[in-house]
C-alpha cells in the first residue's frame, strides 16, 4: 500500500562522513620527516607521528586522527585536546576524525600493552579501547607528539627568519617573533620544516609545557567533538552507515555455545516480500568451528536472512525461526542454577594459591571470632544502547568493513584470519613472539609456545616469525576496518563476532554491501557475558575485632576459556604453564589482578588468596570493570561483615584494614608469592624492550598504593558527612562505604539509603571520590563517574542473566531491566589528586594519569549492600538485589 505522510525536517545530509574514500593527508610535515627512521624513535614509545595528524598546506587546517574508539567516554575529544594543547593548535581550525584500523601507523608496541595478555593480542592493541587505558597509555605520547611538531615548527621559523630559536614563541598555530612583531602560520612553514633535523627525544621533553601553561589539559574548556551531531541526530553509529545498494541481514543463531547447524528450510522466509537470500553464516568446511567456548570471536552458528530493508529481514527471520535444525552439542546441558551449586562446591575446597602472607590456618585456630560468608554474582550482559551492527563489502578479493568496534585491529585481524587462512593452526602464528619482546614472567611459556608451533608447522623459528609477518601483511592489505561512533560499548564491542558475520556474508555477494543488524534480543542472548562467580571468605578476628587472618577464594568462569581456541594437544603444556590451568579452569592473570591478588588490606597479618576451578559452558568476555565486579562485591562486602561482627563503625574499620598504606614494591609481591607480579595489577616501574631490542623505560610505574586508597576513602567519608551523620540518622536509613582500586585508579564511595517497613529501597544519594592522577578532561571524567556509578547500580539492583538448557533465558529490557531515570539518585563526585607527600615518593615525582571509565563501577554493589545493612535491612550476598529488597 502507498502511505502518505509528512515529515518535518531539514534536508538530510547524506554525506555521513564515514568511510567516504581515502583519508586525506595533507602535505603534512613532508615525506622526509615521515619516512625518517629517526622519527620512529622520536617518541620513546615508538609511536610514529604519521597517522595522528595532518596539516593542510593551503588552508592550514589541522586534522587530528582519533585512534581510540569513541563509545561515550569522550576520548575522541580528550586525546585530541592533549595533542592540540602541546601543539598550540587553534581549535577553530582543528577537525578530529576517527581513524581506521591501522596497526602500523598507530604504534607497535603499544606503550601500555594489555597486561598479561598473550602476544596474539599484544602489539595489536594500540587501538583496542578497553581497560580504561586510553589516557593512561596515550597522554604522554600525545603530549610528546604535539610538542615535537611545535618544536619543528619553531626551528623552521628560526631557519626562515635567521633568528635564534629562543626568541620565538608558538601560539595559535603560528610562530611569533616578539622582537620584530612577526608571525607565521604553521602551514607556511612546511617547506622549512622538511629541512629541520628531527629533534631528539630529550629536546622534545625539554620543551613540554609546564602545567601552568596548559590551554586545555585539566581544564573545563575542552570542546566535546561530537556533541552537536549527537543532539541533532547527525552522529553516525554502526547502523547509520549507508552504502549504495546495501542489503540488510538478520540472523537466526544457534542458542547454545558451540552448537552447529544441521539443516534449514528457507521456503517460508524467501516468501516474505523483500527477502533476497537465506544462507548459512559460517560456510561449510570452516575449520575453526562455530562460536562458543574456546572459539575466540568466531560467530555462533547461524542462518542469515538477507533482504532489501531491516523490516523485511526481520519478517523473514521470523518465518525462518522454526525451520532451522541445530546440533546443540554438549553445552546444551548448561543450567545456571546447577552451575551455582557447582561453584559453591568448588570454593568449599582449597583452590590454587595466588597470594600468601603468614599462615592463615594457624591464625584462624587462635581467633577470638570467626566470620565466614559466600557471595554469588550471576552472568551479566553489557547491553549497550546500540545493538551490534556491522557493514561489509567484498570486492576484488578485499573486504571493507564499517563497524562500531572497540577493537579495530582485532576486528581486522580476526576477520582476516577467518577469511584468508583456512588452516586455524596457522592462526596461531599471530601469537608467535620473539622472546626479547616479552616480560620476564612470560618468556619461558612463550618459548614453549613458539617451539611447539614451529614443530607443528615443520618450520624453524626464523621461518615462523616470517610466516607471522607475512600473514599480518596479508591481513592488513586485504581487510579495511572503518570505525564508527559506538552507541555504548562496555566491553561487548571488543568482540568482533558481528563484524565477522558481515564479512562471511559479504563474501557470498561480491560488490554488495551487507549490513548485519542485531536486535536487542540478539544482544542479550549472544553476548560475551561477564563471568558468573562465587566469592568465599573466612576471617579470624582477635579480641579487639581486628582480623588476624583472611582466606579469600574466588571461582569464576574465566573469559580466557572463550578467547583461546582449543589448540592441538602439543600446546597443552604451554597453555598449562601460561595460564596456570591447561583446561582454563582457572582465571587468567588479568582477572586475578582485578581485586583478587591485589588485596589492599595490609594490616591483616595472615592472608591466603585462592583461585578455585570453574569450567565454562557459554561465551564469557568483558563488561565494564570485568572481574572487579565480583571481586569488589565480595571483598568490600566482607570488610563490612567483619566490621559488623566486631561491632565497629564501617568506615573506621575499613581505614583500619587498609592502615596508613604503602606503595607496593616488586619485593613485596614476590615475598607473598604472587605468581605473575608484573601484570596489569603490578606494573611497577616497568621497563620494556623496544622492537630494536634497546631497553627503554616507556611509562611511569603504577604501583598499587594503598595510601591513595586510604585517601579516597577518607575524602568520601568527609564529603558525605559520615562522622556527622553517625548515630543521627533516623531508623530505616543507613550509610555504606566501599573502596576499591581498579585499572590503576582508586575509588571510594558512600551510599545513603532508606528502607521502609515495606522493604522498599530508596537510594538518597551517592558520594564518590576518584584518584586517577592528574584529571585531563574534568567534565568527561565527572560524566564517567556518574555513568560508571549508574552502570553499577543497574547491575547490583537488577542484573542477571540465567541459562537453561544451554540457552540464555532473558530477551530484552523487560526481562533484563536496567536503571531508569526515576531510580537514579543524586550523585556527588570528587577528584582526589594524590597528595604532594605521595607524589614525592613516585619516580620522577610524577603520578601517572590513569583511567576513569571502569573504576567507578565496582564499588557500587558493595557500598549499596553495606548501606542496606546499616539501614536495618538484610545482608545481601547475591546480585541482583531486587530479590531481597523492593526496587521501585
Amino acid at each position: 500500500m502507498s502511505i502518505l505522510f509528512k515529515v518535518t525536517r531539514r534536508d538530510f545530509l547524506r554525506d555521513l562522513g564515514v568511510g567516504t574514500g581515502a583519508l586525506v593527508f595533507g602535505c603534512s610535515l613532508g615525506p622526509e620527516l615521515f619516512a625518517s627512521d629517526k622519527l620512529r624513535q622520536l617518541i620513546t614509545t615508538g609511536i610514529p607521528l604519521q597517522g595522528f595528524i595532518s596539516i593542510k598546506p593551503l588552508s592550514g587546517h589541522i586534522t587530528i586522527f582519533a585512534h581510540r574508539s569513541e563509545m561515550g567516554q569522550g576520548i575522541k575529544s580528550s586525546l585530541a585536546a592533549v595533542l592540540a594543547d602541546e601543539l598550540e593548535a587553534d581549535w577553530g581550525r582543528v577537525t578530529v576524525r576517527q581513524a581506521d584500523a591501522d596497526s602500523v601507523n598507530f604504534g607497535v608496541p603499544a606503550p601500555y600493552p594489555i597486561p598479561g595478555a598473550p602476544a596474539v593480542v599484544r602489539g595489536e592493541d594500540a587501538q583496542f579501547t578497553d581497560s580504561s587505558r586510553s589516557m593512561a597509555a596515550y597522554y604522554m605520547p600525545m603530549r610528546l607528539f604535539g610538542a615535537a611538531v611545535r618544536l619543528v615548527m619553531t626551528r623552521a621559523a628560526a631557519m626562515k627568519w635567521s633568528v635564534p630559536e629562543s626568541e620565538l614563541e608558538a601560539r595559535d598555530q603560528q610562530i611569533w617573533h616578539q622582537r620584530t612583531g612577526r608571525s607565521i602560520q604553521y602551514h607556511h612553514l612546511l617547506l622549512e620544516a622538511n629541512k629541520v633535523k628531527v629533534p631528539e627525544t630529550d629536546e622534545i621533553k625539554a620543551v613540554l609545557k609546564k602545567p601552568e601553561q596548559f590551554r586545555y589539559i585539566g581544564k573545563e574548556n575542552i570542546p566535546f567533538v561530537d556533541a552537536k551531531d549527537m543532539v541533532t541526530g547527525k552522529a553516525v553509529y554502526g547502523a547509520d552507515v549507508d552504502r549504495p545498494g546495501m542489503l540488510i541481514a538478520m540472523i537466526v543463531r544457534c542458542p547454545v555455545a558451540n552448537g552447529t547447524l544441521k539443516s534449514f528450510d528457507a521456503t517460508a522466509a524467501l516468501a516474505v516480500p523483500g527477502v533476497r537470500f537465506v544462507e548459512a553464516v559460517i560456510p561449510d568446511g570452516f575449520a575453526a568451528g562455530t562460536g562458543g567456548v574456546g572459539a575466540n570471536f568466531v560467530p555462533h552458528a547461524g542462518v542469515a536472512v538477507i533482504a532489501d530493508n531491516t523490516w523485511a529481514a526481520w519478517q523473514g527471520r521470523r518465518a525462518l525461526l522454526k525451520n532451522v535444525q541445530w546440533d546443540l552439542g554438549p553445552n546444551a546441558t548448561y543450567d545456571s542454577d546447577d552451575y551455582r551449586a557447582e561453584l559453591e562446591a568448588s570454593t568449599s575446597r582449597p583452590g590454587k594459591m595466588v597470594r600468601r602472607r603468614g599462615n592463615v590456618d594457624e591464625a584462624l585456630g587462635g581467633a577470638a571470632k570467626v566470620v565466614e560468608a559466600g557471595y554469588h554474582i550471576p552472568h551479566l550482559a553489557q547491553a549497550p544502547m546500540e545493538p551490534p551492527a556491522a557493514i561489509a563489502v567484498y570486492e576484488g578479493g578485499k573486504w571493507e568493513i564499517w563497524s562500531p568496534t572497540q577493537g579495530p585491529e582485532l576486528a581486522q585481524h580476526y576477520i582476516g584470519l577467518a577469511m584468508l587462512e583456512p588452516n586455524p593452526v596457522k592462526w596461531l602464528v599471530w601469537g608467535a613472539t620473539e622472546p626479547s619482546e616479552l616480560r620476564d614472567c612470560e618468556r619461558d611459556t612463550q618459548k614453549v609456545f613458539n617451539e611447539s608451533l614451529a614443530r607443528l608447522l615443520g618450520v624453524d623459528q626464523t621461518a615462523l616469525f616470517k610466516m607471522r609477518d607475512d600473514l599480518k601483511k596479508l591481513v592488513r592489505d586485504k581487510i579495511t576496518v572503518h570505525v564508527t561512533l559506538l552507541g555504548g560499548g562496555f566491553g561487548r564491542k571488543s568482540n568482533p563476532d558481528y563484524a565477522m558475520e558481515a564479512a562471511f556474508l559479504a563474501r557470498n555477494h561480491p560488490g554488495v554491501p551487507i549490513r548485519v543488524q542485531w536486535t536487542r534480543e540478539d544482544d542479550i542472548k549472544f553476548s560475551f557475558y561477564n563471568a558468573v562467580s562465587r566469592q568465599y571468605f573466612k576471617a579470624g578476628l582477635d579480641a579487639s575485632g581486628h582480623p588476624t587472618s583472611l582466606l579469600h577464594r574466588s571461582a569464576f568462569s574465566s573469559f580466557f576459556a572463550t578467547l583461546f581456541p582449543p589448540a592441538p594437544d602439543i600446546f597443552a603444556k604451554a597453555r598449562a604453564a601460561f595460564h596456570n590451568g591447561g583446561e582454563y579452569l582457572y582465571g587468567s592473570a588479568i582477572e586475578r589482578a582485578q581485586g583478587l591478588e591485589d588485596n589492599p588490606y595490609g594490616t591483616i597479618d595472615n592472608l591466603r588468596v585462592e583461585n578455585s576451578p570453574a569450567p565454562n559452558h557459554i561465551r564469557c568476555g568483558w563488561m565494564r570493570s570485568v572481574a572487579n565486579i565480583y571481586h569488589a562485591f565480595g571483598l568490600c562486602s566482607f570488610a563490612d561483615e567483619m566490621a559488623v561482627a566486631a561491632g565497629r563503625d564501617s568506615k573506621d574499620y575499613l581505614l583500619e584494614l587498609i592502615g596508613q598504606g604503602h606503595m607496593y614494591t616488586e619485593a613485596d609481591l614476590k615475598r607473598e608469592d604472587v605468581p605473575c607480579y608484573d601484570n596489569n595489577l603490578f606494573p611497577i616501574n616497568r621497563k620494556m624492550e623496544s622492537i630494536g631490542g634497546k631497553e627503554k623505560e616507556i611509562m611511569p610505574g603504577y604501583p598499587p598504593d594503598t595510601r591513595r586508597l586510604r585517601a579516597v576513602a577518607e575524602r568520601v567519608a568527609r564529603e558525605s558527612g559520615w562522622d556527622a551523620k553517625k548515630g543521627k540518622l533516623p531508623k530505616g536509613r543507613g550509610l555504606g562505604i566501599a573502596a576499591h582500586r581498579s585499572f590503576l585508579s582508586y575509588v571510594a564511595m558512600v551510599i545513603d539509603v532508606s528502607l521502609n517497613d515495606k522493604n522498599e529501597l530508596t537510594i538518597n544519594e551517592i558520594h564518590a571520590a576518584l584518584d586517577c592522577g592528574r584529571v585531563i578532561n574534568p567534565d568527561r571524567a565527572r560524566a564517567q563517574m556518574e555513568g560508571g556509578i549508574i552502570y553499577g547500580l543497574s547491575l547490583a539492583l537488577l542484573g542477571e542473566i540465567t541459562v537453561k538448557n544451554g540457552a540464555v533465558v532473558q530477551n530484552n529490557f523487560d526481562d533484563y531491566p536496567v536503571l531508569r531515570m526515576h531510580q537514579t539518585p543524586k550523585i556527588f563526585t570528587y577528584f582526589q589528586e594524590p597528595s604532594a607527600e605521595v607524589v614525592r615518593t613516585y619516580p620522577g615525582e610524577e603520578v601517572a594519569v590513569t583511567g576513569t571509565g571502569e573504576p567507578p563501577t565496582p564499588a557500587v554493589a558493595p557500598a549499596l549492600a553495606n548501606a542496606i545493612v546499616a539501614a536495618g535491612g538484610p545482608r545481601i550476598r547475591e546480585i541482583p538485589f531486587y530479590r531481597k529488597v523492593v526496587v521501585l
Partner: protein
Amino acid sequence: MHTVNADGNMPLLWVLRDILGLKGTKFGCGVAQCGACTVHLNGKAVRSCVTDVGVAALAEVTTIEGLSYDGSHPCQKAWMDLGVPQCGFCQPGQIMSAAALLKANPHPDDTAIDNAMRGNICRCGTYPRIRKAIHQAAGDPTS
C-alpha cells in the same frame, strides 16, 4: 510530504531509517522498552518501533532532524551546554521525549520529569544531566 510504498505494518522506525534515510531516530529494543526511537506524532511522543506506518498516514511526524534546523531547540541547547551525551545514541530519543514533555508541561518538577522520561533508557548513565538539562531548557533553576 513523503509518499512511501511500504507494508502498512512496517514500523514507522524502519520507514524513517531505511526508506527515507532519516537515521537520527535510533533502534534500541524494538518493543517500546527503551525510547531510542521516540518521535513526535502530531506533537505527541511515540515509540516509532511499535507504531505501524499505517497509523502515521496523513499525520505529522517530527523526528530529531526536524526538531530544529540548526540544533537551536532549547533542549538541544541545554543538552550541549551541560554536556549531557556520552555515547549519544539514546539522546535523540531522550530529546524528543523531553521536547514533548516541555510542550505539555512548560515547567516540570523532578517527579514530572521522571514520569515523562522513565520510558527512555540510557546505558551510559546520563540521567542526572538529562534532568538538569530539562530544567534548564524550561528556564527553571537546575538544582
